[in-house]
């Protein structure tokens, strides 16, 4: 530990800054949460007041749960997000391993090509993607969304993961090769556990934009059976009247699953580092 980090004044300052940031970041969430438990009148009269005996109401939640297939939307969002994360992490890590580990012709070029995807937003290709989905018959399937989000997530995943894979000790991989482990075993059993924190980072980066996305669900899978939560919540936002109770309740419930996923990954982030393997 260096001196500056132990200085109580510095520690206090750092905490003040961090707590301020946390409060600012959490404030909107907090407002949504408290208002989702209030009557419509109370929401507009005093948006910042806590719900009390007078203003307390579960009307929003009741609407949401009665309305259509809220659980189906939930499930759709969950399937799309989890499946996408799985594929992004699996294929991203495999590509990153190949780029970091093997010397082959066009290695650098391939890396640059993959990195290019970070700079070009996938939405530019929406029309072409829609075309493709129509001709492959994937419109209004969750698979369409999973494929698009996987493509969207891979460039950054490969970029971040290959950087981390380069840091995994060559000696460890070589020891495995001498002991007769296959390249797959080396990848899955030796390398992946050591880059687990970076996998969690990539997962967190990818998860929230996918969960919140409205664009592709609206274009590629607007059918009732494949609606995601974000798209499903739109029914409460009308052109003339918006059912704020329902919108706030839907948003409150939508926070939960991402929060759970986030907690799973952030535990990995902290716990993942297996020290003592090397050095």
């Amino acid at each position, binding site marked *: 530990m260096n001196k500056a980090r132990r200085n109580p004044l510095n520690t206090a300052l750092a905490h003040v800054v961090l707590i301020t940031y946390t409060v600012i970041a959490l404030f909107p969430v907090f407002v949504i949460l408290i208002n989702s438990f209030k009557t419509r009148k109370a929401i507009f009269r005093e948006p910042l007041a806590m719900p009390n005996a007078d203003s307390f109401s579960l009307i929003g939640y009741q609407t949401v749960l009665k309305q259509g297939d809220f659980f189906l939307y939930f499930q759709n969002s969950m399937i799309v997000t989890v499946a996408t994360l799985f594929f992004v992490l699996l294929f991203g890590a495999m590509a990153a391993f190949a780029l970091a580990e093997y010397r082959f012709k066009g290695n650098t070029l391939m890396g640059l090509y993959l990195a290019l995807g970070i700079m070009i937003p996938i939405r530019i290709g929406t029309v072409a993607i829609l075309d493709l989905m129509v001709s492959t018959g994937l419109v209004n399937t969750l698979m369409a969304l999973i494929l698009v989000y996987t493509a969207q997530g891979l460039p950054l995943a490969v970029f971040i993961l290959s950087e981390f894979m380069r840091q995994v000790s060559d*000696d460890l991989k070589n020891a495995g090769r*001498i*002991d*007769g482990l296959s390249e797959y075993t080396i990848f899955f059993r030796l390398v992946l*556990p050591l880059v687990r924190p970076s996998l969690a980072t990539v997962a967190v980066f990818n998860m929230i934009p996918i969960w919140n996305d409205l664009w592709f669900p609206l274009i590629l899978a607007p059918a009732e059976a494949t609606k995601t939560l974000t798209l499903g919540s739109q029914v409460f936002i009308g052109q003339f009247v918006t059912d704020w109770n329902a919108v706030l309740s839907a948003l409150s419930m939508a926070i939960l699953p991402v929060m759970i996923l986030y907690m799973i990954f952030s535990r990995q982030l902290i716990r993942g580092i297996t020290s*003592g*393997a*090397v050095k």
Partner: protein
Amino acid sequence: MTALKLTNVCKSFGEVEVLRDINLEVEDGEFVVFVGPSGCGKSTLLRVISGLEDATSGTIEIGADIVNQVSPSKRGIAMVFQSYALYPHLTVRDNMALALKQERKPKDEIAERVAEAARMLSLGDYLDRRPSELSGGQRQRVAIGRAVVREPKLFLFDEPLSNLDAALRMNTRLEIARLHRQLSASMIYVTHDQTEAMTLADKIVVLKDGHVEQVGAPIEVYNNPANRFVAEFIGSPAMNFIPAERLGGVAGQQIGVRPEYSKIGETGRIEGQVIHVEKLGGDTNILVDVGSSSTFTARMFGQYEIETGSHIGIDFEDAHCLRFDAQGNRV
């Protein structure tokens, strides 16, 4: 029988030639040390022998078989790395057993061999621990144990002691020497530390820029270096070089004298000013500015009181002088 034979081995990474035309034989049961400065290609040579890198050209024979196309795990070798490279998720026992499991050896044989290696390296108490729960020295012993259980035809060590502190380095060095006697296995040991090279080797291979400079028994290499590079690299403090003209020799040549062969007095064959004195207790190193490009180090046995700045002379016998031409070769 030869345990290892390298014939005209070359290795390039793209344009960069890292190994140039290496020819070498290792006899059965021999302890061979590759020594050379950092970046001279020692590790690369070891990786080529183990099969982790393909040779660009040349043949590699282990036992009597050409193994150029054989995968590392099937070459009958085991390797110990500088960074230990233990599997973090496995216990000490499983770390040692993994290679045997991969070879599908029967369970009781695996258990027996692991127990034997653990006994040899006094690792019995740690078998159920993970690498993160061990000290550096213990980790390196586990890495050595992992090599021992495979009963390889050839052991490869890549600077196994570099990450250990001085006391532990000495102990582990002795342990490796003992292991070599017990197993009478062929071993190749890479180091940049010439003390390790001198103390462990049956045969030293001095490398420079991917090229073998000299092969020989440690004392032979010490007494009879083939060129100036070897003379300078082996021995500590390093050999002194004086232009031959100053001693009445041929112009352009250099005379090399080991520090311990010098005697000091009021006057001598060369004279100069003392610029530093290192008192090590057992011996004393006297650094003298004799007017040539580098300082002259005299190593005296015992303890001496000499003022820096004083003027002294240095004497040495002709029998202890080595001559090198302008290209650095022995004449």
